């Protein structure tokens, strides 16, 4: 494995008596595309929120390229180099597609402004397949196009680590293929990605490595094919009888 981009050590998040993330540790290497999977309520999104700064861990430590980011506000974490998409797509409804993407380029690591920001955002819109749609109001766009805008906005920050929270959810079969290709291309460019996903086909096709969570605990971590065949993982998803 090459240089470590993200390292999570004994991360724990408790909401009162409910422990959503319990003593989870794993590292992510430069250029890796990791699938973070697990049944509903297993703590995947909470884990993502801990990494992006939306939530503060109760204990444990998270480092990005050696810099401690656990406990920092999301805007600080974004500036250090983490960008994300949201489980339920979040675009800026009053703005055009290109303004949405520029939002990612102006304040985080890139700090572009004026025409360089606009040109850069235009290039990213083309990158996600929205050439010529720069001036469209995002509120009038279809679901997949809004997801594309959101992805372009995350890429606009030139993040060291990209977090995709069920970015493929809700797409129809043909859109899904387009989406998988897009993520694969972005990963091939050397971008480090963690994706939370329920679409197992996508995990199998895309991810070299998977981290599996169940009830807040990490239950498996390894090559995707091996992890998905692990009896513990199958039991977590399907119950005892099918293992």
């Amino acid at each position, binding site marked *: 494995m090459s240089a470590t981009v993200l390292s999570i050590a004994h991360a724990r998040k408790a909401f009162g008596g409910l422990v959503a993330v319990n003593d989870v540790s794993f590292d992510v290497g430069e250029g890796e595309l990791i699938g973070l999977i697990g049944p509903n309520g297993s703590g995947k999104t909470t884990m993502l929120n801990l990494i992006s700064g939306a939530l503060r861990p109760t204990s444990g430590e998270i480092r990005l390229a050696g810099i401690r980011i656990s406990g920092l506000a999301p*805007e600080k974490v*974004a500036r250090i180099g983490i960008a994300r998409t949201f489980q339920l797509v*979040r675009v*800026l409804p009053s703005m055009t597609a290109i303004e949405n993407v520029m*939002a990612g380029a*102006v304040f*985080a690591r890139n700090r572009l402004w*004026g025409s360089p920001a606009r040109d850069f955002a235009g290039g990213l819109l083309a990158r996600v397949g929205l050439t010529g749609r720069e001036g469209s109001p995002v509120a009038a766009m279809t679901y997949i196009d809004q997801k594309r805008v959101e992805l372009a906005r995350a890429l606009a920050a030139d993040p060291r680590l990209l977090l995709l929270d069920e970015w493929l959810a809700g797409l129809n079969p043909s859109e899904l293929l387009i989406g998988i290709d897009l993520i694969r291309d972005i990963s091939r460019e050397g971008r480090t990605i963690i994706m939370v996903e329920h679409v197992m086909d996508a995990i199998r096709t895309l991810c070299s490595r998977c981290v599996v969570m169940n009830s807040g605990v990490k239950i498996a971590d390894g090559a995707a094919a091996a992890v998905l065949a692990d009896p513990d993982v199958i039991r977590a998803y399907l119950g005892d009888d099918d293992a």
Partner: protein
Amino acid sequence: MMSLRRDELAVAGSGIAAVALLSLLPLLSDGFVLSFGVNLMLYAAMCTAWALFSGPTRLVSLASAAFFGVGTYSVALGLDSLPFPALIAIAAFVSAALAGLVGAATLRLSGVYFVIFTLGLAELIRQVVAWSQSRFAHKMGLYVFTDFTERDLYWMLLALTTLVFGVGWLINRSRLGFALRIIGDDETVARHVGIATARAKIVLFMTSGAFIGVAGAIVAPRYAYIEPQAAFNPMISFLVVIMALLGGTRRLWGPLVGVVPFTIVMEFITARFPNHSSVVIGIAFLAIVYLLPEGITGFIEGMRDRIRRRAAARTGIEAPEAIEEKAA
């Protein structure tokens, strides 16, 4: 984006021409029209300054009276010892500091709490000023005697309004302006793209508050006798909100569109039915919120978009061209 576009130059040019024309008003007339002009300029400055903050963030501030009163009292308290420009600077500084304190304490709160807090703050300051005057100075008010005429006040307020527009225009072109639009749309997204949302809102609230404080300082000589009930009158806060909402807060010049008709109506009402003005303000407020939630400018822009879309749907060609062809 950073260099001036042709349409921006056109707007700037017509803005300068408008200011030049308006500055001639005191030479053409004095008495009623000039006095009306002072009212108009006062609310033009305050409403535009209010909308600098409340427009993009959609947080309704009812603290205008607090800033206005702080500005008025800066002049009343310091007139004997300091020159007027220094008092203006003090008014700006103290109002900005007050806004900074309020912002740091409340801007993490969501909408409705912020509204109530700002209303309460203005009332609290009024009570504290009234109490300390009767306790320590043993009188209710302060005299403000200056050599300023209505003309001077009008010109100063015109300069202030121009300055507010200039600053607003610069903010809109800046990262801060873009950050505020993003915050207004979705604060969670704003934070995750790296915007320090609390700081951005506080900076803007301080700017807005400073301008309203300066407006209060400039008109202080008009009152001659200043007491807390007038300087911190909550009606000021409500009028600022109503006029700005009537015009619409999406554009920098939106509030101005509301200030002109409302000032005329208020002038008429206070002359004819002096005891019923609060009833009229209440009805106007309800009517605006129900009938024109986006203000006059928002309504017109919405209509224009709808007509364009309908024209585009009918003819199947690009909307703006369709409109132009019909017009020609």
